[in-house]
């Protein structure tokens, strides 16, 4: 469980925004950002080909 205000929360917040904008413009970074968020238990894996 991530503590409120911890570095990890700040990281997830930042990753989330980066991920959303990568999705929006179809940037390849979305794959890695998704993987990092998934590893942190904060996101669902992208479906194949997405």
């Amino acid at each position, binding site marked *: 469980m991530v503590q409120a205000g911890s570095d990890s929360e700040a990281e*997830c917040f930042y*990753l989330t925004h980066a991920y*959303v904008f990568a999705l*929006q*413009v179809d940037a390849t970074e979305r794959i890695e950002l998704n993987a990092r968020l998934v590893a942190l238990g*904060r996101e669902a894996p992208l479906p194949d080909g*997405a």
Partner: protein
Amino acid sequence: MGAHTDLDAVMTPVATARGLPNEHYVSDQMFVEERNAVLFKSWSGIGFAKDVPEPGDAKPIDFLGMPLVMIRDKTGELGVFQNTCRHRGMILIDKAKKIEGAIRCPYHSWCYALNGDLRATPHVGGPGNNIHEDIKRDELGLIRIRSFVWRDVVFVNISGNAPEFTEVHADLIARWSEHDQPLYHGGPGSSFKLPVKTNWKLAVENYCESYHLPWIHPGLNSYSRLEDHYHIEKQGEYSGQGTLVYRQLTGEGGEVFPDFRGLSDKWDEGAEYISLFPNVLFAAQRDHAYAILLEPVSTCETIEHVEIYYASPPEETPDLEALRDKNTRQWREIFEEDIFVVEGMQKGRHGAMFDGGKFSPAMDGPTHLFHHWVASKLAEARG
């Protein structure tokens, strides 16, 4: 709601029938009833596939107050969705644009794939946490509206329970099967809009009859006389008129548009003009086609969206650009000649003693057929 209008007199044979009562043209309440019972329950035209040519192209459309969006996905399929975010109901796409990757809602940034799937729900489980057990993404995709593209027109069935388009319109699809080949839009000069102060039905009714041609289109009548026309009547589906003396437009140097491929002789001098119920007007001719989509804006306002198509792409026939412009001008003049009648009939329906009108059994069959179709749809919905 509006159930007081008498439809029985409309649903008798043309010789004895009366037209739809005034309320169907002047009452806002009836406009809403027809929206629900007629336009939403059948296959209505909302736009043109050529307006979203490439993957990622999206175009929002307000259809009778309902926010929709046409999107071409990565596989090239055209989809129509309700343009409303599944979260708090924000409008997703406010103007035509190219979407690179995902549709990001401008409010809390939920993201949808071009096929409508919900892809991301940022912070939905609290800051930095994008998942939550109660947010089931596979249940929260965009609401897909049934759609079908025919002759470049995008049709939708909002109610979702009409029989398949290809089943409803099997007869016309077969009738024009020879014309089932690529239609190339003529480009920006082959597109125009005519806003008219009339109820949408009057534009349908005027289009499917040839009775008015000698009076309203004297130019056309100089070579295409009333007696050279025949009625087209398919109960419950479409009506219109055909001509036996279609003449190709020719340019300064005698040039003509190339023909659609492999048409039978019937089309050498034949052409057909059909109102496909509820709201799209089509033309099939040897060398070009057009579609007029009637956008019902309000009880007494309609926008006619006119798009003209050819047998070959304009890029391949730049030398025919002047002829295409001339063709657009010619059709525009003809459609403009019709404006005062559809607007005049709209005004006429404020005459409280008008009883729907008396049809000519010889000339008004196609018009009555449309009235009968509308009345049947209303009667069905009223139960």
